[in-house]
């Protein structure tokens, strides 16, 4: 039996430190997507991202009973992963860096199993193409913000090494830029309501 806060991050860390595999599994299940988003936001290849994420978890494992603030484990993991990603980028990837366009209409990036290479709906592909054409900063921030479950701004700040106060305004600017990109791109994302165009002709 665990108390009502047994799922709180700090409690999971404490339970894992005491040898509870299930608590560790919960930590991984909760934060692995965040770490994946950080690594992909920094454009690491699948192999390098996997190594960086694994190294981050190993670091947590050896520091389980020494983390100064277990409640902030998400930020701790995000910081650790960011540092691992930067090391990879500084030293050069063992694979080619992930191309700017992560997805194409007929697949993802060729690195995943065939079953995963789902055909994106044309609109979604267009959206993804516009997203992957954005600046590194915007891609990285939005990628981390998309994480499920949504990360705290503290974890986002740790992942990107940016002040918490600038996350909101930067998020708004990046999304506005993406909307503009899609509008310029036209095509399926012509944002002018259909009935207005019909009424004009």
């Amino acid at each position, binding site marked *: 039996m665990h108390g009502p806060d047994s799922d709180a991050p700090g409690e999971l860390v404490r339970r894992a430190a005491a040898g509870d595999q299930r608590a560790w599994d919960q930590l991984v299940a909760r934060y692995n997507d965040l770490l994946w988003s950080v690594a992909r936001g920094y454009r690491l290849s699948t192999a390098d991202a996997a190594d960086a994420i694994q190294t981050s978890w190993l670091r947590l*494992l050896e520091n389980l009973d020494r983390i100064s603030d277990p409640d902030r484990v998400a930020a701790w993991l995000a910081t650790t992963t960011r540092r691992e990603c930067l*090391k990879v980028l500084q030293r*050069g990837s063992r694979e080619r860096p992930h191309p700017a366009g992560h997805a194409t209409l007929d697949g993802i990036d060729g690195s995943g199993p065939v079953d995963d290479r789902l055909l994106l709906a044309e609109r979604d592909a267009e*959206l993804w193409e516009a997203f992957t054409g954005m600046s590194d900063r915007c891609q990285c921030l939005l990628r981390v913000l998309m994480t499920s479950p949504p990360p705290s701004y503290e974890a986002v700040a740790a992942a990107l090494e940016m002040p918490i106060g600038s996350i909101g305004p930067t*998020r708004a600017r990046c*999304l506005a830029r993406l909307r503009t990109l899609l509008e310029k791109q036209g095509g399926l994302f012509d944002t002018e309501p259909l009935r207005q165009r019909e009424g004009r002709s």
Partner: protein
Amino acid sequence: MTDMFGTDDEFLARLGTVAAVADPMPESLTSAAQALFGLRQLDAELAELVLDSADLPQTRELAVRGDEERMLSFETGRAGVEMQISERSDRRDIVCHVTGVPLDAAILETPKGQQPLRVDDDVLIARDLSAGPLRLRLTTTGGDKIVTSWVRI
């Protein structure tokens, strides 16, 4: 701001849905990370990473990709490990000097398995390793156990 994408929150949620299809996290990453728990080492003294030459700005500037050596230093209160790493593409050679304690045995450990290393005085050598995380597990002649931090080589 709203348009056909809705509010910023809705737009971001839509992007997240697309990202989950366009660039999904491999499922094996979660099971692999969960399996790491078995590698927890509670009965050994931790030799922490205190220096990584890759973190030094001058080393980064001088580094020539694929043709440089990296130095790592680990320390406990009484023992030190200097690890020199040579890189060739995705293969790694390591030479380690252990100071401060007399060594009896050494094991190189990765998430995939273990490999005993020959102890030659205070020197340990391992060649043609895969790039990725590893650590050293050392046993002194007195039976004490020391383990280094995990590092990605």
